[in-house]
């Protein structure tokens, strides 16, 4: 129940003295693109966000992007190199984790193996010298919310993965923290359980009124759970926005490629200005830019130049006519409702998503691999990115 604000947060990991350089090519290591300075590797920089009370914020990004480091700085498990962290308006940079009134759920649960579920949950309360009755009431209340009352006397080893996960969450919510930090809590569950727990987290969130900061590399979790999403890469924030904003108006090519499954397709194209109106030359086909984007691009001072054109797989559609771009069908993935076609277009692999059945619920069976198909797309589905900076030209 608190606002959290991060201002100009920076984290530098000093070089470890005496550690031999591993014989890996730089691109093999996670975070290989992080900036290296004299003081060490910069894991996070320029991190600014104001998280409102009771907001659910998701930090998302590929491994090594600094999302976990940021969370651990909020928790107090990592020192903040530069910048200020406020919880509930109070500067907490120098406070110990226990004094920040936060709770954290770890990726691998980190339950105390020698204690029963009850003791695991009561552990933190005991330190806060609550009375025995109060501890009991709180533990049972939390157990009730999570549906683990019947396991209270068991030890973690006799629980399944999902149950352990619940205990880990229970341990966090039991003391009603100002903010709840979660570090990839679902990544160790199998797909089915993950979906189930995701739904439960949404329900849980309604029951306990607190600020959530959630780290994940899974963009589905980010989209479904977050009020706002923070997309990170190489230690920098790429975009902060609601799931819809991030999906509809990605600030750059990275965000566009990261959010949405299957991934957005990118093509080389040329932006041409004709009579005050932009259009995209895509492989000889001229596609006009929609008015709204046109206006914004004008305002941004965009000039005719080669660009990157982004198209989501489901905005591509199959057409019968020869007048459209032609592609070679590589792999056909039948997903049930949809079919994913992996196409080869001008030496590039692209994905097209189409319905598996027609209006009469008959399977369309004409997607054979090794055949040639024509595809088209609507002008409003185009995303245009600067070829050098990757910036979205139309926002």
């Amino acid at each position, binding site marked *: 129940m608190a606002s959290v604000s991060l201002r100009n947060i920076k984290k530098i990991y000093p070089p470890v003295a005496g550690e031999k350089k591993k014989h890996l090519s730089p691109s093999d290591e996670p975070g290989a693109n992080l900036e290296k300075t004299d003081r060490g590797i910069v894991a996070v920089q320029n991190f600014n966000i104001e998280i409102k009370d009771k907001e659910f914020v998701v930090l998302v990004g590929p491994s090594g992007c600094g999302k976990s480091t940021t969370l651990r700085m909020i928790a107090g498990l990592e020192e903040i190199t530069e910048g200020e962290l406020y919880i509930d308006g109070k500067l907490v940079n120098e406070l110990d984790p226990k004094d920040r009134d936060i709770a954290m759920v770890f990726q691998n649960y980190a339950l105390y193996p020698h204690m029963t579920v009850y003791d695991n949950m009561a552990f933190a309360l005991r330190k806060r010298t609550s009375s025995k009755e109060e501890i009991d009431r709180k533990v049972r209340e939390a157990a009730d919310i999570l549906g683990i009352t019947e396991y209270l006397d068991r030890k*973690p080893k006799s629980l399944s993965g999902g149950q352990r996960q619940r205990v880990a969450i229970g341990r966090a919510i039991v003391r009603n923290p100002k903010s709840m930090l979660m570090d990839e809590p679902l990544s160790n569950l199998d797909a089915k359980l993950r979906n189930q727990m995701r739904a439960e987290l949404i329900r849980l969130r309604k029951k306990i009124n607190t600020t959530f900061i959630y780290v994940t590399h899974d963009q589905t979790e980010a989209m479904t759970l977050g009020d706002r999403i923070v997309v990170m890469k190489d230690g920098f924030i790429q975009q902060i926005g609601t799931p819809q904003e991030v999906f509809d108006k990605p600030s750059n090519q990275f965000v566009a490629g990261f959010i949405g499954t299957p991934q957005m397709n990118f093509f080389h194209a040329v932006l041409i200005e004709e009579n005050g109106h932009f259009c995209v030359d895509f492989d000889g086909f001229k596609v006009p830019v929609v008015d709204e984007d046109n206006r914004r691009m004008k305002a941004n001072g965009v000039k005719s130049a080669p660009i990157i054109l982004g198209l989501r797989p489901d905005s591509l559609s199959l057409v019968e006519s020869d007048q459209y771009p032609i592609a070679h069908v590589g792999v056909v993935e039948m997903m049930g409702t949809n079919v994913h076609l992996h196409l080869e277009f001008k030496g590039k692999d692209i994905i097209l998503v189409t319905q598996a059945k027609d209006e009469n619920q008959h399977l369309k069976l004409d997607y054979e691999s090794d055949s040639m198909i024509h595809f088209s797309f609507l002008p409003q589905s185009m995303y245009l990115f600067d070829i050098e900076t990757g910036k979205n030209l139309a926002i």
Partner: protein
Amino acid sequence: MMKRKTRTLIQDSIVSTMAIGFGVILIFPLIYCLAGAFKTSYEFLTPTLLPGSFTYLDNFKEALVKGNLLRYTVNSFIIALFGTSIRLVFSILAAFAFAYYDFKFKNLCFFLILGTMMIPADVLLATNYLTVSRLHLLNSYVGVMVVSFVSGSQMFMLRQRFMSVPKDMREAAQIDGYGDISYMVNVLIPICKPVITTLFVHSFITLWNAYLWPLIVTASSPNMRTIMVGITKLNSWEDENYQLVLAGVCISLIPSMILFIIMRRNMRRGGMDGALVG
């Protein structure tokens, strides 16, 4: 081609027979010792293994009373218990520091401590004696115990175990409001109980069985001897009483056995089950 079942049976029988053979070799001294302890001095000279009667307890009585073994047992017990406990406390604290803290010259310190493991204890006998005597600790419990207060090997084993506990556990405890010492007491030590128990039992038995060091440190005070020293005094070249010595050995085995049986359950592995994923 032999049937698989027959083949397994033959293999099993061979292994079992060998195991039983080795078992007998290992346990024979114990049987001999136990049987000898119940023999009269006349029986001891006959070539039979078993005594005439297992109710002949004079050897035990004599060892306890004449040999003052009761007093020596108490001495040994105090030395082994306190020596072991203090050693474990030091080892746990040092291991915790080496496992979790970063400080200057950490590696150097660590290897220096490991280096002490390579020096045989007997080499240090003379210098240790001088040190202890100058501290006026001769003929005292502390004098016997003090050299075993620290142990590089125990510290090393505990450090390895502590390092295998995921660091998330410590961080979870930090967030739950537990500092280093309370984390150690409430989480780390219970998790590492099997290793700590094993080290306790091993160390207790080592101190209980120590002979040379207690012998020279308590040389001038017969009352301060430990049981192992006491047992050897039961026999002398003018009065050969091997059955008394064997009775003494039987008595000396009792505490170690009891300890082992009590602690056996705790020594089993599996302290970390269920803490993490999978």
